[in-house]
């Protein structure tokens, strides 16, 4: 593999990682602070994408769509929190799994009823549809670079908020020891609602950013949800820093693995056997990586809870 190719794959891995981080950030906070397993988080990603489609049709403008989709995603997240999730915080994890699974079923079906089963697409705005020559014969879309940039900026802001503000301090304290925070007189419920709403919005934001390059279709959040869980597990639950590092690692492992594993197999096996084993192994790689991390660090790379 040439160095340019490697460079491109690194960019691709980084971009996937950034997208994963936007989804995982909300997930890890909701999990870390509230101890709440939200399977419906992938649905928020899908909602973000569909809202962008809908508003893009309405306004005819990607940025306009984004501006409308984000607050709507926030509102929908808050509505879900108010109607359902709020009643589940003090319940067993598995009750949360069951209820949020119900939410997944409902929203996936509702989306299909409203927008139909076929994949949909959002057109990129003119300003972002440019490309630049990366090697002779290969153009790299500017939008993807923008996506990486935006993701990094959001990550930085999020880190600042969590590390430097009062709310962030409460979030960190909540992730480490929610009982004490509550005992100190902090309105933990309101904190939960805020964290939940913004987590949902971030996932929706990821969906909106993904809409112009990926197709928008029902169930699009299901598989990503699983990978997002992998990310927060590797990173350590409740840790924004962990989620970021794990997201980038998973993005790189997945992307580079795909291009390297089959070639590596060809060194050992004949071509047809390599083509059979390689892709299966590449698909497993993320899970092997997670199992490996957990083998050596049973609570992830950066566990937020010290002892528990």
């Amino acid at each position, binding site marked *: 593999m040439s160095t340019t190719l490697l460079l491109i794959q690194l960019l691709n891995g980084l971009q996937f990682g950034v997208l994963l981080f936007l989804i995982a950030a909300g997930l890890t906070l909701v999990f870390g602070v509230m101890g709440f397993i939200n399977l419906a988080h992938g649905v928020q990603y899908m909602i973000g994408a569909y809202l962008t489609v809908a508003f893009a049709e309405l306004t005819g403008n990607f940025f306009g769509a984004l501006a409308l989709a984000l607050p709507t995603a926030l509102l929908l997240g808050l509505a879900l929190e108010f109607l359902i999730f709020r009643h589940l915080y003090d319940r067993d994890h598995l009750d949360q799994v069951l209820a949020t699974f119900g939410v997944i079923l409902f929203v996936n079906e509702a989306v299909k009823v409203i927008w139909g*089963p076929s994949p949909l697409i959002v057109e990129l705005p003119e300003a972002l549809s440019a490309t630049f020559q990366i090697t002779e014969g290969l153009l790299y879309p500017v939008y993807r670079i923008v996506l990486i940039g935006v993701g990094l900026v959001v990550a930085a802001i999020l880190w600042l908020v969590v590390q430097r503000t009062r709310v962030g301090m409460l979030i960190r304290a909540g992730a480490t020891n929610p009982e004490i925070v509550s005992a100190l007189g902090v309105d933990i419920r309101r904190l939960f609602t805020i964290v939940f709403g913004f987590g949902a919005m971030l996932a929706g934001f990821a969906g909106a950013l993904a809409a112009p390059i990926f197709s928008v279709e029902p169930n699009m959040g299901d598989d990503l949800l699983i990978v997002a869980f992998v990310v927060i597990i590797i990173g350590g639950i409740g840790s924004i820093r962990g989620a970021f590092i794990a997201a980038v690692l998973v993005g790189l492992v997945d992307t580079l693995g795909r291009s390297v594993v089959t070639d590596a197999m060809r060194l050992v096996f004949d071509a047809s056997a390599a083509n059979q084993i390689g892709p299966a192994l590449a698909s497993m790689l993320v899970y092997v990586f997670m199992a490996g991390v957990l083998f050596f660090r049973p609570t992830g790379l950066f566990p937020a809870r010290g002892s528990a």
Partner: protein
Amino acid sequence: MKNLVSLVAAAMLAAPLGLSPAMAAEPLKIGMVLTLSGPPAALGQQARDGFALAVEDLGGSLGGLSTEVIVEDDELKPDVALNKAKKLIERDEVDFVVGTIFSNMLQAIFKPVVQSETFLISPNAGPSTFAGRNCNPYFFVTSYQNNQNFEALGKYAQDAGLKKVFLLAPNYQAGRDSMEGFKKNFKGEIADEVFTPLGHKDFSAEIARIAASEPDALFTFMPGGMGVRLVKQFRAAGLADRMTFLSAFTVDETTLPAQKDDALGFFGAGSWAPDTDNPRSKAFVEAFETKYGYVPGSYAMQAYDAAQLIDSAVKAVGGDLSDKDAVRAALKAADFASLRGEFRFNSNHYPVQDFHLLRVAKRADGKFQTEIEQTVLEDAEDTFAADCRM
């Protein structure tokens, strides 16, 4: 609702055709097992609508028997497909099962359906599994043998003098078949063979490899949403101007509404396209678009033909479905005017037909469809029929 799309016009039709009242009272029951949920639901929807349109065009009856169509969703889960098929056979006691869209669903329902001696007619899935040694007297296919579209593209690549081709497919059985099929007729250089996981999202890694190996053409098989993403990302990377895009089930009427201009000029393959030049096909496309508001693809056409096939067979046996051998002979005769033109069954009950190179075009009304560019294979038989002892 979906389960009882009852298309009954019994009283009206029994009399002119001179059927006895007893026979007219017993409607023809057809069960469909199609994928109607999840991302590939668009394919099942096409097949459902195509079949319904045929029944409507035939006056609500097939072969003179008032017809009831029961549509079941297999949810793309083998166990669900199996349950639904068993329900159709055991509880609804259907006379024919029409299904499925996907090969793995066909695998799941095949044994119970044919063992109950119910005729199974596939409107799309045509795996090699049941074309050769495991061909079955109760199984007919109105679409194609899966490999044939790929073989047609390989033949075209060979004839067009393309020297170096890059192969890209998802990592599952049909994906592996696609590469084998393509290589059967293409003898030039294979730049690389790359498999992606099913449902792959981001093709940028693959696109970088394609660009680096500088082939004359990309051959790919990326059904559904994967095709939408690949086409967009392929176009955005600027590769569309540098090489030919050869594909099967990647740019078709189910994906074009999302791909739009990005797919313009890309090639597919098939036995039919909406611009097929015969009056019946033209009437079908027009009626379909009027009724359902979208452009029919091959899935709709094949389901329409499946209904016509059943109609012709029921008519030939005078509505008496008890003599299975007679019904089989009548089905085998394929005595109907297929929308695609010439059509007959091979010894393994898979079609013998022409395959064309299709090109994506924009119509005057702004909608997109595939159009026949040239005929690549004539009267093509699949390679597995020789192994079929039936």
